[in-house]
């Protein structure tokens, strides 16, 4: 064949031999190129995930004796605000009474604090709507009120009215003693 095509622009697919095997080589080479790019894409995507030092961020210990009854202290934990609120008996009673009320994300007050520690409400202070920090004791339910788009939370941190879809999240924490709590 070679002598007939000298000087031409031969079509690589025009020559003899089994066409399937020919195509297979080109397809395999092309697939290997796509595969290589695909495999190398992962490190370039994964590098934007939290790095090892970020994941190792320390936990926070907090002395609860600093919080007065009916008040709240906000501390920073993993870059986010953390609400530590000491609820009054009246607030606890109102929250428990509302357990049966209709709400977007129903949850019992009991499930949102440690057993026997109903006065201590520890929550991540970022509105579940779009992440603003709700203001203390505002809104229709006396818990928190998000000024950005008007979400009302009760004293248990449950969403009652407004655009937020879920309750304020409860972080992992434990009581080291009656006055000391460790978050994270």
């Amino acid at each position: 064949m070679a002598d007939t095509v000298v000087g031409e622009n031969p079509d690589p697919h025009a020559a003899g031999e089994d066409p399937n095997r020919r195509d297979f080589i080109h397809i395999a080479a092309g697939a290997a190129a796509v595969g290589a790019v695909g495999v190398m894409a992962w490190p370039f995507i994964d590098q934007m995930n939290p790095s090892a030092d970020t994941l190792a961020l320390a936990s926070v210990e907090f002395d609860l004796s600093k919080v007065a009854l009916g008040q709240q202290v906000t501390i920073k934990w993993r870059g986010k605000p953390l609400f530590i609120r000491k609820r009054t008996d009246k607030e606890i009673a109102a929250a428990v009474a509302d357990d049966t009320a209709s709400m977007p994300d129903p949850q019992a007050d009991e499930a949102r604090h440690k057993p026997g520690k109903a006065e201590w409400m520890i929550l991540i202070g970022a509105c579940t709507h779009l992440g603003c920090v709700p203001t203390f004791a505002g809104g229709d339910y006396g818990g928190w009120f998000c000024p950005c788009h008007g979400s009302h939370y009760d004293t248990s941190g449950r969403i009652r009215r407004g655009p937020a879809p879920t309750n304020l999240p409860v972080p992992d924490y434990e009581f080291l003693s009656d006055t000391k709590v460790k978050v994270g």
Partner: protein
Amino acid sequence: MLRKGIALAALGLALVAGPALAAGSAKSPEPVDFSFKGPFGRFDQGQLQRGYKVYREVCAACHGMDLLSFRNLGQKGGPFYDPAYPNPNDNPYVKTIAAEYQINDIDSETGDVIQRPGTSADAFPNPYPNEAAARAGNGGAMPPDLSVMAKARKYGPDYIHALMAGYVDPPAGLQVTPGQYYNPYMAGDTTPFWTGEGHAPKGGFIAMPPQLAADKVTFDDGTPSTIDQQAKDVAAFLYWAAEPKMEERKAFGFGAMIYLVIFAGLLYASYRRIWRNVAH
């Protein structure tokens, strides 16, 4: 034709590339047969543990390792890695080691400077509060940070081993200033201090006295604690500290190489097929 040129050039290069014999050069370290050398080399975890012990009991009194955190000890490939704890922050051994240290911190309530037990997220504490204190405590010489020491010296871990185990009495005729120690592997120039015959001895002066001694560190695994063994183990530990992702890198590289070779073969077959009817 160009290839011939390159061959010629390489020949020419070989002719001019005589060994440079500058006065005052240091002795070249003898290569150590470390397990992590070579394309498939891996760290010997037992050696890393022994090396960490040498660092902790001998080096850490003066040398910081600012780039390392306790959690690094428990990460994959590290001295105390345990497959049961993929997250090194949970590794109980690492937590115990960290808790043995007192870390400076600020009390978030009062703002006072306090000391608290370390956590796995804490960095190795530096033995000195600042550089001036480090110099003042060591006769004006600053003990260098060891985090990437094994990459910051020519011959890396071989050099560290040779230096640590290589202290000898200064040859007669070499004047050693007080507070200095002669080491044949240390970079420097002994010529100004040489009163003997012929060439000044190789090596230089180092402000660090000999640190290792037989049985100075007790190895928990029963390895005989000789100076040479301690030097090897601490060199291996420092190499791990400088290049903790080495095992991951070589494993990735092994896969990449196989892939690339197969890929090259496929492309070559494709290339031959496409060009087969073009006379060129």
